[in-house]
């Protein structure tokens, strides 16, 4: 198998993308564009991690947002309540989130597809209602107020939008590269085998529940990474990050961009965020426009953008 060249190629693409993104502010400063990239970084990680479950393993989780939100709260609380530096707080938040997704996964992965979807949704809703009720810790429906203390990390001053932009871009690209590596690894191939034919997979010796649990945990961890970026953007943490419409957003990003393409969720997230930005400026009926766009995709293209393009111009084997 040509692993080495493929991995190098992925790294090269990532490097080029990163250089392009970092170069743009040097040519032209646009706070709106920078906001967009910052939000996209968080959402791209969130949606791509979800696709590890949905597209790669065939596990439809309706509750993925709970890890995104959990991490945002863990990170923001750590920053507000302790003097730990940003990288330490971030790593801590992600570690706690990974542990949480391991626990939730242990309960959920044994259920078959439909019920797995429902139970992840139920756990998320329970988690959300805990956030809302536990006001002394989380601030309830208002979220964490007072902002995240702006501390320095590796020379980045996160109160500067430019530095936040650069930080998010670097983290997002590295995170996506890591997910790509996992997806292309033998483990990733095992997941896809489970998605396609789980009976055959288990005959070949794969322990289904263990592979699924690994996938769920890893997906939770990367969602947590996205959550940290989201917390930095809003300088706090709000319950909506962990609410199920947010999980829905990730699902739509995956569907709109392409469930069978690695960069599909990123493209889908970009489409959703761009629509959100642009449409709101022209009309207050954002829902109407978004609904029509989604119908166009679902009924017209019938698949996500990258999947559609790949089918339209098939070149080589994936």
């Amino acid at each position: 198998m040509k692993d080495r060249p493929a991995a190098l190629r992925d790294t090269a693409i990532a490097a080029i993308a990163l250089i392009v993104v970092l170069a743009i502010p040097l040519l032209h400063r646009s706070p709106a564009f920078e906001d967009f990239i910052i939000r996209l970084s968080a959402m791209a990680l969130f949606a791509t991690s979800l696709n590890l479950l949905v597209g790669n393993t065939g596990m439809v989780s309706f509750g993925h947002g709970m890890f995104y939100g959990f991490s945002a709260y863990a990170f923001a609380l750590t920053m507000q309540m302790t003097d730990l530096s940003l990288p330490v707080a971030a790593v801590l938040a992600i570690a706690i989130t990974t542990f949480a997704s391991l626990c939730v996964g242990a309960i959920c992965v044994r259920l078959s597809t439909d019920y797995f979807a429902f139970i992840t949704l139920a756990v998320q809703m329970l988690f959300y209602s805990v956030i809302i009720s536990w006001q002394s810790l989380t601030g309830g429906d208002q979220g964490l107020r007072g902002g995240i203390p702006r501390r320095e990390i590796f020379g980045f001053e996160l109160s500067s939008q430019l530095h936040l932009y650069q930080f998010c871009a670097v983290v997002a690209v590295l995170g996506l590269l890591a997910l790509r590596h996992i997806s292309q690894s033998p483990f990733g191939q095992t997941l896809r085998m489970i998605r396609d034919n789980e009976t055959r997979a288990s005959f070949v010796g794969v322990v289904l529940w263990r592979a699924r649990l690994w996938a769920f945990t890893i997906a939770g961890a990367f969602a947590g990474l996205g959550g940290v970026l989201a917390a930095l953007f809003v300088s706090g943490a709000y319950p909506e990050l962990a609410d199920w419409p947010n999980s829905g957003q990730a699902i739509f990003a995956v569907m709109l961009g392409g469930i069978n393409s690695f960069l599909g969720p990123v493209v889908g997230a970009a489409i959703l965020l761009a629509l959100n930005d642009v449409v709101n400026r022209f009309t207050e009926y954002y829902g109407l426009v978004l609904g029509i766009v989604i119908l166009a995709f679902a009924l017209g293209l019938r698949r996500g953008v990258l999947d559609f393009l790949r089918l339209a111009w098939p070149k080589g084997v994936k």
Partner: protein
Amino acid sequence: MSGTITRRNVLAGGAAGLLAAPWVAKAQANTLRIGMQSILSGPIALLGTSSRNSLMMEQDRINAAGGFLGRQIEFVFRDSKGQPQEAARVARELVNSTGCELLVDAEASSASFAVQEVVRDLGVACIHTNSETSSLTADPKIRVATAFRVARQGVHDAVAGSIYLADYANAKKLDKWATCSPDYAYGRDTTAQYLQFFKKFKPDVEIITEAWPKLGQPDFTEVITKLIQAKPQALFTLLYAGDLSAFVNQGNVYALFSQMTVATPNVDYPVLAAIKNLPAGIQSATRYLETFPDTPANKEWGQAYLKKWNERPTNWSWQNSLAMHFYEAAIKKANTLDGKALAAALTGMKINTPFGADGTITMRDDHTTIGYAIGWGQTTPKEPFIIDVKPADWGKIIELETEWKKQQNYI
């Protein structure tokens, strides 16, 4: 796999081009854009729509008088649906993408804290017009240099309301009370404040039960029956807009209002009009009343609003008008739109306005206003809807507010 690279590059390039378009900074037009965000849909949409109505009236008036610094003003309205995450995004978008130079934050309390953090980062001038939670300005950790509040404050209302209600309760011998407030920050904090002061003025009051429905929940039946079981003599509720309407309608089914006196600070005109079978005799604060303060200026403003929008102003309406009065005065004084300079001008500023108890309202050092008209009276199904209005004692309000702030370690 060169094909993949080509496709990806094309996609990336095309996408970048498409996406870049809206964000390339627009050339500075002469119009002065002012961003306003609020809840414009859902059961509490009245909050946002009545705010917007007022601001459009102010836009016309100010532009007719020459605008700000010779520039015509233009409001940009956004619906955040009351969600803090979306409110933060909207605030940044208004300033960063749409080029707004001033902000009028008409969010309800939960989202206003999110906007506060954005204002802290961006340093733009912002006036919060609808958030009543005291900590937004009272808590020094949350206060921001360029953000101010012109909305009535929870703690002021609590003091004024509890003085009135304690008198009323003593007169009518209503010792057993229940509370029913929406389970979110405003509902919790403000109810706690009311109860704290109520107990101070009427120590023998007994709160026999508390109900905490969720904001916007469609069915209050189980809450209503719980209240009826408890048999209080009076009920204090902070429900408002669509929730209050549903509560009244559902309460009527259980004849709730014949079993207990109801007190609420939140009965706005349009709500009174929308509730089909409104019981009389609800003890209510004057949210906006044309007859209180009973001055020609106030009546004129109320009439103008009614004429333009065919509905009566709400509490949120006058608060947003007041924000523009303050901006007007501050910009004239500072002669700039810079956040810091406007903040310096606004701090301690006293202006003439129809909404002041004595014709004036002052913006204090802690960035919140005092001296606005607060009164309590009782409802009646016909004009002027609230009668027997007793104005509040501002001396007492400030005295107790200071005590409360010390208690919370804000000062």
